[in-house]
């Protein structure tokens, strides 16, 4: 706060901040965000380069992949992460599974986020009958068991990776819409939005320039939360036979196939679980940093 009596006009308001230094440059400067970026890069590399990173076929049930009694092998020098119940190399399956899980976690989740934001912002800003209709529909979707809906949708369409991604998106936008709706409607009441109206700003300008930037933190949080949710939902669907079709690997279905043997062969759940965790955490770190960088009021704070 500047001195009340000394003319407030001469008081320099802190150090003039440098105009928007590249978001990317500020992102990589933060250690945690960099860690997140590195993890995402590794997962993407694993997905793309899987055939060159491993000598095994993800779906080959190897004769030497099981013990004499027919139980899976723990990690050793030959199979780095051990083998699964059918004698397939776990590392290979996780590498190939990254493809599926990335598509689900990013595309399905992204589409869900998009729909949720669109519905939430529209309902929250325009209110009226459009708003009521959209929100009643959202409530209806919320009350409807998500899994049942997914099963219905998956039964209608031929299961394929992209269809599964869309089904997941159609199930998952609801929570986002609710949260975004609440926030938009309170933002729309804020005085600076009224101030925008008085200078003649129309709805598109207010929505994109003045409301969306304020929703970013929420969108980022829901986006990162959504990654693990969607990856696991995909697993549930494949477990029910309506997701990605076996033997195609995904992190979710590796966990589901093997969860009953958790006590005897914990690595079968641990490694794919760790992979999901790492991916979600990585996006969380990036999202956190992005939120701070994009918020001018946070500048200069730790």
């Amino acid at each position, binding site marked *: *706060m*500047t*001195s*009340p*009596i000394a*003319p*407030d*006009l001469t*008081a320099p*308001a*802190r150090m*003039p*901040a440098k*105009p928007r230094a590249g978001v990317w440059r500020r992102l990589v400067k933060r250690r945690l965000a960099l860690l997140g970026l590195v993890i995402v890069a590794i997962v993407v590399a694993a997905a793309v380069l899987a055939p060159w990173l491993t000598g095994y076929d993800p779906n080959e049930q190897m004769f030497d992949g099981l013990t004499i009694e027919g139980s899976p092998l723990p990690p050793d020098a030959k199979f780095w992460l051990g083998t699964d119940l059918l004698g397939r190399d776990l590392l290979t399956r996780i590498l190939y599974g990254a493809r599926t899980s990335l598509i689900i976690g990013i595309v399905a989740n992204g589409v869900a986020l998009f729909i949720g934001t669109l519905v939430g912002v529209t309902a929250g800003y325009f209110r009226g009958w459009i708003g009521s209709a959209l929100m009643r529909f959202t409530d209806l979707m919320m009350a409807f068991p998500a899994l049942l809906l997914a099963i219905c949708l998956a039964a209608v369409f031929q299961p394929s990776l992209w269809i599964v991604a869309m089904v997941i998106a159609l199930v998952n936008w609801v929570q986002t819409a609710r949260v975004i709706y609440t926030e938009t409607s309170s933002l729309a009441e*804020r*005085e*600076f939005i*009224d*101030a*925008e*109206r*008085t*200078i*003649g*700003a*129309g709805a598109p*300008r207010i929505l994109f*320039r*003045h409301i969306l*930037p*304020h929703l970013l933190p929420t969108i980022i949080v829901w986006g990162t939360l959504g990654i693990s949710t969607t990856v696991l939902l995909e697993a549930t669907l494949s477990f029910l036979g309506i997701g990605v079709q076996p033997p195609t690997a995904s992190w979710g279905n590796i966990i589901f196939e093997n969860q009953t043997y958790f006590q005897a062969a914990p690595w079968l759940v641990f490694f794919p679980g760790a992979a999901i965790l790492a991916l979600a955490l990585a996006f969380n770190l990036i999202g956190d940093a992005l939120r701070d960088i994009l*918020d*001018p*009021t946070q*500048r*200069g*704070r730790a």
Partner: protein
Amino acid sequence: MNAGAGKNRIGAITPATAGSVLDIANLSVSVRGEDGEREVVSNLSLTLARGETLCIAGESGSGKSMTALAIMQLLPQPAARISSGKIRLGDTDLTVLDERRMRRVRGDRIAMIFQEPMTSLNPVLSIGQQLTESIEAHTSLSPAEARQRAIEALKAVRISEAESRLRQFPHELSGGMRQRVMIAMALALEPNVLIADEPTTALDVTVQGEVLELLRDLQRQHGTSIILITHDMGVVAEMADRVIIMRHGRMVEEGKTSDIFARPRADYTRELLAAVPRIGSGVGRQKSRHMETATPASVASVEDLHVRFDLRGGVFGRVTRRVHAVEGVSFSIAPNETLALVGESGCGKSTTAKALAGLVPYSGDIIVGGRNLSGLGRDERKAVRRDVQMIFQDPFASLDPRMRVGDLVAEPLVIHGIASRDERSQRVAALFERVGLSADQMDLYPHEFSGGQRQRVCIARALALRPKLIIADESVSALDVSVQARVLDLLKELQREFGVAYLFISHDMAVVENISDRVAVMYLGQIVEMGTRDQVFSNPRHPYTRRLIEAVPVPDPARRRSRFARLDQEIPSATRRIGEAPLKLALQDVGNGHLVAADSSPV
């Protein structure tokens, strides 16, 4: 009422300490922030005598509220702490008391009331529950006895029908009532010290007077010592025995009230007192300017404006009641003129402004630059609306915190497609300089400015489109007096330079007298009196206008009033059942365009 009877009270007043109740020695409070620790209160010493009222006055950031919180041991944790000094209540040093024992002191020995009575009462508990809760926590009274004590406390603050009030919830009471409930809570246990932090700042002037008088009466009866924290020199003059002026966490001056006002020693005190707008002084303008010129064509006029909000109720969400916010208001504003719209909260002055700015739907006619807005299409209306811009009350809330101020000021030009990119930034730079900011501050964000500077940004933004009318809705109310004075000067300067007209909306009669050419007084959605500044201030004809003017505390201890204008009843509500439209007041000309409502029945 004998609070804490038979209980060993912490910090009891022993004969040895009987002279002073509270004794602060060399108190320093520091706050940990972005750039290390900063002292917000430095080396403050004061004593509070029994039955005395000590005012701590100062502008925002002076450390006055931090002092209060330090006494209560309620400093925001973990950022703030007492770095040195002692706070002695009787013979106990509060700074070394643990939390459990401090809890027994709070409420029982030292009570506090806050600025905003709505946020300091719990909205989901009834008044009775909240009152008895604190009584039961500090005494061994039974629930029935506690209830009796609560009723007594409500009666003491002159709340009628105390028994039935106990069942009411905070939202069912008006602001003044809520603050009285807060005082009742604070005084129910007969504390030795009452700390009141801006207790009347959020209240209307007429209610303010009443609350102040109540505090004075209660003090007389119980001998409570009061520390009154305020920025309002009028309240200081009205209430204080002794004054401490604070600035930047330090005591600038201390003395008896009459001495401080009559012979301020510190420069800062002098400047502070000089900046206080005084009613009846007629500073700023010698004469109402529009008396001599023939009425020119108006820049904007409003005719028979109505704004009503429907309240839905019942199972089917039918409209059951209506808020009659604005009921048939008419006025017109000439170029280069300042029309002030005054009244207390809920009188519809802000709603009138919002209707004029196009923010709420209305019925009636709004004519801007000779064109009736209701007959226009969307694009035309947008073009006409360019001529009416608005400055809001809270400069912290009316600027998008995520935009650079330069972009914010340029935005109106972008929206209306005025000027090329380069020209725009030149014009914005010129606007910045014009309102007293520097052009290299354009890249900063709103939070990097002080309140006064932000209001200047808002003014620059309103000016960007070269409007013919600027609506200033309580635009200086949130600012410190010295900043307020400079912003008012700026507004006047801009008026001389650009010939812009102002619709100046305010509850502060002193400010209104300073800036306006004409004044319209609103009450319950209607104008009850309208005329030139001199007509309204020197010859107020409507009883409500008179009461508004009388209620303003005068910053002069010599003119202290023994009794304030009393409100006999609550201001009636503007909410009515469907079909019960309020009576329309007819305005009569009592000479030279001085209009007064003929029927003075609502007051």
